[in-house]
């Protein structure tokens, strides 16, 4: 068995497989390892993502597209809704099939893929990461590599082994729970993804989503702030919501999970190692969507890595261009989304209800985000103070 590569990628989620695809395409010798016995199982996701990013990595295939949606709806606790078009066309994935297809794509373009293979430690030489220690199909051995990529998801430990600080504060970590429900036809518009917000009665510090997976089934899930889960668990909050809103439905599957919503780590590289995806906290710091962002992070990382490996310099100084690329593209926007989450979690439920009620009467589809914000500020001057944060981060009025 081969035990020496240009790049070893740890974790075959969307970010790891996307990294493997890009690295192999640019001619590097790549190994992608995954500790689970089957890629993509169990699912830890609500499965909504955008077509545009997805199809840059893999040709669209109906095998893993469960459903398509046209609009997003933000719904308050009393049922008013604001309907907005997505910034890019949204699909509902069948992630079990998608994750496996993406890893298979990596194999097709030349990467070696090994499941049931866990990284259990790093190899170091003179302060530089030189590979991983693995346990694979019951055997332990070392795999040497010029570069290691940590794409090991929310439970990431690989970067910590290299001394990077990756532990999020509980206030910036979402814990989540989800049911796939059937019998939903009477309760939803199958063309709309819904976000239900209400800090007191729905989801403290987070939201509930109803994402249709077909005409009669949907992923209905919750995230709440990890610092607000001590008394009542995410599971219990979600059960209460489903009992109240969707009586009589059946449960087809259950998902539990967590996602960092800090915004991407400042430090995403060290000598001989890069971090991508959830492991690098690249998910959207408001919605926690991380499939596309992780794939884009992987792409940026590999564009820098290819040159670094070919030139034989994988020092942090050289790999750091990846951090610059990320922060240039997403830094400002994610700082703004982070502020929006903080503002929402401080707003009391009545205030938020009034805001949504007002917005639900505006012709949103014809307005720019700036016009919408100004209109809301006129009616709710108390928001001016909060909006200051957003304006300074440049999100709203550009």
């Amino acid at each position, binding site marked *: 068995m081969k035990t020496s590569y240009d790049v070893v990628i740890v974790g075959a989620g969307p970010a790891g497989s996307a990294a493997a695809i890009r690295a192999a395409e640019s001619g590097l010798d790549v190994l992608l390892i995954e*500790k*689970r*016995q089957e890629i993509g199982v*169990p699912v*830890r996701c609500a499965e909504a993502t955008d077509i545009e990013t997805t199809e840059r990595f893999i040709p669209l295939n109906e095998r893993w597209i469960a459903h398509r949606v046209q609009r997003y709806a933000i719904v308050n606790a009393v049922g008013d809704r604001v309907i907005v078009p997505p910034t890019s066309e949204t699909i509902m994935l069948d992630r079990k099939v998608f994750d496996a297809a993406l890893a298979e794509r990596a194999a097709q373009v030349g990467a070696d893929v090994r499941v*049931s293979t*866990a990284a259990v430690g790093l190899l170091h030489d003179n302060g530089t990461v030189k590979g991983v220690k693995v346990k694979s199909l019951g055997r332990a051995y070392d795999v040497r590599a010029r570069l290691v990529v940590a794409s090991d*998801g*929310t*439970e*990431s*430990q690989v970067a*910590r082994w290299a001394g990077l600080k990756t*532990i*999020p504060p*509980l206030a910036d*970590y979402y*814990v*989540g*729970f989800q049911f796939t429900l059937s019998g939903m036809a009477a309760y939803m518009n199958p063309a709309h993804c819904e976000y239900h917000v209400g800090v007191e009665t729905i989801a403290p510090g987070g939201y509930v989503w109803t994402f249709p997976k077909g005409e009669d089934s949907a992923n209905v899930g919750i995230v709440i702030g*990890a*610092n607000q*889960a*001590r008394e009542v*668990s*995410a*599971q219990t909050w979600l059960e209460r919501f489903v009992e109240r809103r969707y009586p009589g439905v059946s449960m087809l599957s*259950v*998902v*539990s*999970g*967590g996602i*960092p919503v800090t915004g991407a780590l400042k430090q995403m590289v060290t000598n001989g190692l890069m971090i991508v995806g959830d492991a690098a906290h690249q998910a959207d710091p408001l919605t926690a969507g991380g499939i596309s962002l992780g794939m884009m992070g992987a792409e940026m990382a590999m564009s820098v890595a290819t040159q670094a490996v070919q030139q034989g310099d994988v020092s942090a100084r050289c790999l750091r261009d990846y951090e610059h690329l990320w922060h240039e593209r997403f830094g400002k926007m994610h700082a703004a989304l982070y502020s929006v989450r903080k503002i929402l979690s401080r707003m009391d439920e009545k205030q938020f209800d009034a805001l949504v009620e007002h917005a639900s009467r505006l012709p949103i589809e014809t307005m720019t985000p700036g016009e919408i914000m100004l209109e809301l500020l006129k009616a709710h001057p108390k928001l001016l103070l909060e909006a200051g944060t957003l304006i300074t981060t440049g999100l709203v009025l550009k």
Partner: protein
Amino acid sequence: MFRRNGQQHVTRLDIDHDKCYSCGACVAVCPPDSLFLSKLTLQVDDTTCTRCNRCVAMCPVHALALTPVESLVS
């Protein structure tokens, strides 16, 4: 057996494997990196766990508890 820095712990992290979904959320927030998902089974390193309670407070299904050692032994 339950010593760290010469200190005797009176509690121990108890994982309810019937409830746990092996989602890894607790692993993400553990400061001393004492939790580990081996394939899909959550394990705790009792020698490094500081009993800080972070994982207990945030688990999406409340599958974790700091339990008095005597009640586990008996």
